């Protein structure tokens, strides 16, 4: 450190002691005299006073903001303000379904037993007229209370694992296989707080369980536990490691209804909701139930998974990037002790006609039903 710098430091220290009133009267008088005769010191005093004020104000502003955050959290948690309960309109809405219908599923081995009533409900729901919906809701309600009792039965079943029971599912989404042994990926919000999970394709329904949750990425991995499920060999699609390009044509398969629905569109922005870099913005028709649908490019590579839509009039659709799915799969793989899962990165659909691609893919996309 050279002379002048050391001198500057000392002056700064002296000035600061002066500003803070830390000098004794003699010293103070001496300094004031010195200040009068040295304009550069006088200026430093003025300037530094101002600077310390700014610094001080900055500190208090920071503290005030911290208090605000703490107060907000407290009041929201104790319910004194509505912040946690009220959902914004122009927020991202998740595309899962509140089921207006019920499905029957054998919670144990038999897999065939269905209640007559649920068959009726299915039948009615496919017609979809307004008045029938009224009826449906009522039946649904009736079933729901019933299934409460049945829920108890299921607990009993778990113990003696013999009888069959009916489960009514209340919401749903889409998921697709990432390992042919029976691992599917979907959105975390689809299976949030799930008591029971089943996957369905056509008239085949299988019980499943949540194997892994990645809250940060809004992803979840399901494992089909049903013994009737048979591995289908290999996956036709792969998860792309590369980012998709702006304007790239894309298509999706999902379950906004009980039946698989095809949709096509294009990538409209490289980031998702409010600039989220883990996601894309897509121009594609997506509805409640499309959450968890694979988003594929023309080569049959999965480039993302649909997870939400902006609820204002613009209605942008968002998809989580395939690289994020791969990252979640990697993490899941690490968490497994014995079993190994496969990371699909190769598509076998290059150069095929779209109808052929869809035909191959649809066997791997499932309706996810959650209770």
């Amino acid at each position, binding site marked *: 450190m050279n002379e002048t710098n050391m001198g500057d430091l000392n002056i700064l220290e002296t000035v600061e002691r002066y500003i803070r009133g830390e000098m004794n009267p003699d010293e103070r008088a001496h300094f004031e005299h010195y200040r009068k005769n040295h304009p550069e010191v006088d200026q430093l005093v003025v300037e530094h006073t101002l600077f310390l004020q*700014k*610094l001080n104000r*900055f500190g208090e*502003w920071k503290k005030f903001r911290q208090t605000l955050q703490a107060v907000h959290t407290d*009041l929201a948690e104790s319910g004194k303000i509505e912040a946690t309960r*009220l959902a914004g309109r122009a927020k991202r809405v998740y595309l899962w379904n509140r089921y207006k219908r019920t499905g029957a599923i054998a919670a144990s081995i038999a897999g065939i037993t269905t209640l007559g009533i649920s068959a009726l409900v299915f039948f009615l729901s496919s017609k979809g007229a307004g008045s029938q919906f009224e009826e449906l809701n009522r039946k649904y309600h009736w079933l729901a209370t019933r299934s409460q009792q049945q829920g108890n039965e299921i607990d009993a079943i778990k113990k003696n694992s013999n009888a069959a029971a009916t489960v009514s599912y209340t919401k749903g989404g889409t998921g697709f296989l990432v390992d042919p042994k029976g691992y599917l990926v979907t959105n975390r919000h689809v299976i949030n707080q799930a008591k029971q999970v089943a996957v369905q394709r056509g008239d085949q329904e299988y019980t499943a369980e949540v194997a892994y949750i990645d809250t940060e990425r809004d992803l979840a991995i399901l494992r089909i536990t049903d013994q009737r499920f048979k591995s289908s060999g290999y996956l036709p699609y792969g998860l792309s490691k590369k980012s998709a390009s702006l304007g790239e044509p894309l298509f999706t398969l999902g379950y906004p209804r009980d039946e698989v629905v095809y949709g096509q569109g294009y990538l409209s922005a490289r980031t998702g909701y409010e600039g989220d870099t883990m996601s894309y913005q897509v121009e594609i028709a997506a509805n409640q139930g499309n959450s968890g649908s694979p988003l594929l490019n023309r080569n049959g590579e999965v480039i993302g998974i649909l997870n939400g839509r902006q609820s204002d009039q613009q209605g942008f659709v968002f998809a989580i990037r395939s690289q994020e799915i791969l990252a979640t799969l990697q993490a899941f793989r690490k968490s497994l002790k014995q079993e190994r899962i496969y990371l699909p990165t190769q598509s076998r659909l290059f150069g095929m006609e779209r109808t052929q691609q869809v035909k191959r893919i649809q066997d791997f996309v499932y309706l996810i039903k959650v209770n």
Partner: protein
Amino acid sequence: MDEKQLLHGLATNDRKSIEAIYQGSYNSIQSLIVNNQGSVDDARDIFQEALIVLYEKVRQGDFELNCQIRTYLYSVSRRLWLKRLQKQKRLYAEWEDADELVSVDTDLDRHEQEDADYERMERSIQQLGEPCKSLLEAYYLRKQNMASIAAEFGYTNADNAKNQKYKCLMRLRKIFFNE
């Protein structure tokens, strides 16, 4: 507590007063924003910024609102939110106001200046790097004394820490004034 006492509490970062003001005004501002293309998070940000505008006002010794606190906060939030919508070039319709409005132009102008100042200080401190950043934060923002800072940062004595602190302050001044 009457409104004047609440304002004094706000100026001194008094938790009870802030809670009371928060509780009295937050919900109506949240509905304003959520009903106009905003999210709950936007509502929180805007409302807290409005509280900062009020905080700056009362810190200047200006306790005369000429209206209720909630009316003031509503008027400020409304302006802040409109501005943000315009900035994002988002379309918005003229909306119906649930509350009466007061003019807040001068306060918002001052707020913009102060905000720029805070941001400049924040950036300057970020540029400092460690240990200067933590050292200055401990002394000037958290008001720790030199002896405890010396112990915390591992200086052999308070004088060395003090010397280092002045060097850091010199650097901060330089960055801040040259920005």
